[in-house]
């Protein structure tokens, strides 16, 4: 049988998309053809991008004609997902990326985006909810839940190996989010300034790059904690997993979030999770049970809870062990991607039979 082909619409550079595509190749033996918008969204290019978007369906149809894919998949229900379903190609699978793809929530085009989303919800053959949060939103939006697959892509458990680090003599905290405003590294730094004042020893590793790098470096100096903080810049995933294994606390304070693979990575690697109290995180973290949830921006509570958790090694150790078991069960990349790939094969089989 010839190798089956999937047309992927989405931003191919994103880690999330790469994981998805690689999983399909590895566990479904699919060949992946990709297409994405070429123009960026900045300045005058925005107009070019809109024109490109308007003409996209013609372009997608040409690719379909040329490559004859067996299936189309796409990310975001308001953009690539809409194009995938509007192109008429069957079967189609679309992933909702965040709690909602209508972003930003107060955008002037909210109404228009909602229409696109509703169309995609209706026309897609399969909808991916990478977490309960997306599924809840879909349910509220009146989606036929029979065509929703609630399953995270998972993480590579062979790469993110468990290391409890419970004998460490100080807090070794790690942050793995991009250095952009929505991830609120300033809140984390401010909290560690207080942790320092509490007299609790720590080191903090901030992995990643972003527009706030210089600002955050200066802030750590202003808070007199720069000697305890390492900014690594962008690292390859092997190095990230190594640092996670060496750390005992994972801190993440975004103001908005869908399902973060980095939370699973940290839980799998033996880091105690302290994350923002957001619906997405609440699906995986029960406050004070297997981690700590901090209300948005509350750096004082963040500091107090980090210090308090540090003084509870027996509890933390229990949490770490249980969290690893949870990730192995719920977010195992090789298991979950096999399920997803098998589902695609089944959809293609059905589509061939019905034609």
């Amino acid at each position: 049988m010839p190798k089956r082909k999937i047309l992927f619409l989405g931003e191919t550079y994103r880690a999330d998309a790469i994981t998805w595509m690689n999983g399909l190749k590895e566990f479904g033996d699919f060949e992946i053809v990709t297409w994405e918008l070429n123009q960026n969204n900045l300045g005058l290019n925005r107009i070019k991008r809109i024109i490109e978007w308007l003409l996209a369906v013609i372009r997608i149809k040409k690719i379909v004609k040329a490559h004859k894919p067996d299936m189309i998949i796409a990310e975001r229900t308001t953009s690539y997902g809409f194009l995938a379903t509007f192109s008429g190609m069957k079967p189609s699978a679309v992933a909702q990326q965040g709690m909602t793809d209508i972003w930003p929530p107060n955008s002037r085009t909210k109404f228009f985006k909602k229409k696109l989303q509703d169309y995609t919800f209706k026309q897609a053959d399969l909808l991916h909810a990478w977490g309960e949060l997306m599924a809840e939103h879909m349910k509220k939006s009146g989606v036929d839940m029979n065509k929703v697959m609630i399953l995270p892509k998972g993480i590579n458990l062979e790469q993110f190996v468990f290391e409890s680090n419970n004998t460490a003599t100080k807090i070794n905290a790690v942050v793995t989010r991009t250095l952009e405003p929505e991830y609120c590294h300033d809140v984390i730094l401010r909290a560690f300034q207080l942790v320092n004042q509490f007299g609790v020893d720590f080191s903090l590793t901030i992995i990643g790059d972003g527009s706030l790098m210089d600002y955050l470096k200066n802030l750590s100096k202003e808070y007199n904690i720069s000697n305890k903080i390492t900014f690594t810049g962008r690292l390859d995933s092997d190095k990230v997993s190594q640092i996670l294994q060496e750390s005992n606390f994972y801190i993440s304070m975004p103001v908005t979030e869908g399902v973060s693979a980095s939370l699973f990575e940290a839980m799998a690697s033996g880091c105690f999770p302290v994350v923002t109290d957001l619906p997405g995180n609440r699906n995986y973290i029960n406050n004070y049970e297997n981690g700590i949830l901090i209300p948005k921006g509350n750096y004082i509570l963040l500091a107090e809870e980090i210090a308090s958790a540090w003084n509870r090694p027996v509890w933390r150790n229990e949490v770490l062990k249980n969290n690893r078991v949870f990730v192995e069960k719920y977010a195992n990349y090789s298991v979950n991607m096999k399920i997803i790939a098998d589902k695609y094969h089944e959809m293609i089989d059905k589509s061939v039979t019905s034609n």
Partner: protein
Amino acid sequence: MCGINGILYFDNKQVNREELIIMRDILEHRGPDDSGVFVEENIGLGHRRLSILDTSSAGHQPFLSENKRYVIVLNGEIYNYKSFYNEIKSKGYQLKTGTDTEVLLILFELYGLEILPRLKGMFSFAIWDKSEKKLFLVRDRMGVKPLYYAFHKNGIYFASETKALFKVGIEIELSENGLDEYFFNRFVSGENTLFRNVKKLLPGHYMVLDSNGSVQYRKWWDLKYEIQNQSKINNPKKWFEEVFFESVNLRMVSDVPVGVLLSGGLDSSSILSSLYHQNYKDINTFSVEFNETEHNEAFLAKKLSEDYNYNFHSINLNDELLLENLIQSTYYNDKPLMHFNEPHLLGVSKLAKDKVKVLLSGEGADELMGGYVRYKALKNPSLLKVVSVLSGIENLNKKPRLNKLFRYSKIETSDDLVIYNGSNIFPEDIEKFYGIKQHPFNSYRYSVMNDAKELYPNNPQRQALYFDQHTYLCSLLDRNDRCTMGTSIECREPFLDERLIAGLGTLDDKWFFTGKKGKFILKSAMENKLPSEILNFRKIGLSAPWKDYLLNYPSIKNELEDMINSPIFEIKYLDNINPKKLIQELQNGNDKLVPFILPIFMFHIWHKYYFQKLSKL
């Protein structure tokens, strides 16, 4: 009603009996009648008993189940414990005591935590399961009975009052969030406290702790869910009267005398009237008198008591007696006072101590039925914008009440109007008066607010009731518990019956906000039972004349002047405050400063006396 405490270590360390007893006995005022401890390896439970039901020694705690598997310490009462007698007997159990504790433990043995929704009462308790090595900590629906805990030395320490935690080495470290809330919102809401290492178990929640350190937190009673799932009340007035009377009757279950905290206002008078109409005899009532006419309702309380042929008692706290009760109530509350009537409540409880062991209180009526005048401002928030414009008129602004309204009117969002509705200091004041730019996070308050908005969209008045039921009321209940238990008296709140709370949450606005005083449903239910002077008297509540105290009561005035040299001004919140200037301005007649000075003054009193007293014990 008692004091409970305990320690569970997660690293199998042996509990030190002496340490457990130190924790227990600092709570002696909560239970002078008996005491006990249970220690077994890494678990220890302590209990101070105030005997209310079956006062014999059979009610000794910690109480062991018949099969010796479970051990319980209970603070509070299960009012409907007798209603389980037949059920328990049918399951083959023989009761050995007349206590609610034994009934509760058997029910737990039979049903586990599933029994909680069937319990009517006020309680916090701890049960140790020897077989599973699990500790269960449970708190009642509205948080009438307290339970504080701290994770310390690889274990959990818990107690009815935080002083028991401090006494065994948990440090008194002030939380920045806690201070924010204390100074700017009057009290710390939610599970956090003024102290960094100490938390409260939230009302309607339980915790299950394993010996290996695992913890489960669960909400077992959710008011939002209860309101959403209530069936329609067809005749609210009739329903209210029936349930309220039943609730009062239920709270009369006692083997010792019960009295009433009677202010003379609508709420406590309704309780007294309910007792009268249910033929209860020989009731003692207790009231606080004020010299200042505008604060005094005691004459109404006296008249009603006489009308019903009940025994009226009252107390007037003057100068030194006021200071003495101020210092003592600060100790019992473990934190700076925030309602400013704690000394009065303690004073009246002392008065009651010789006559009764249980007091009924009208607490909760205002939050459940819209009794506070401040809710009126939320009826039409857009009018506040107009009020805000008038704030520039200096003559109007000089009057403290109007000044407060003007300051309040500058709040910009509807959410903040609700959140700051019970405060005396508002966001703009924080910057102006304290020179602090960052507002309190108020994380718990905003989370309650989200639920309130879901239940009552676009209805700030109803949102405020729901909000206060989860915040302000909790703080008042803490105050009631501490001030009455300070004199070994149990306080019961008939308005906080779970059927009333949830049912009232479903009623139309008109049942609350019709008429000048709010609480329309209570007024309607009681209109043929209470005299018109009580039904129509302006609302006072237990509001104390602090401006007069600060200016004219020599003992209090001395303390105020002593505050000038207090080390509290070294903390960053008070960096911008010049105490000498502030006090001078007040003494020169600037009444507007009273709401700003009081939290600082109470903080000073706490700082000056609390540590002193704690270290002496």
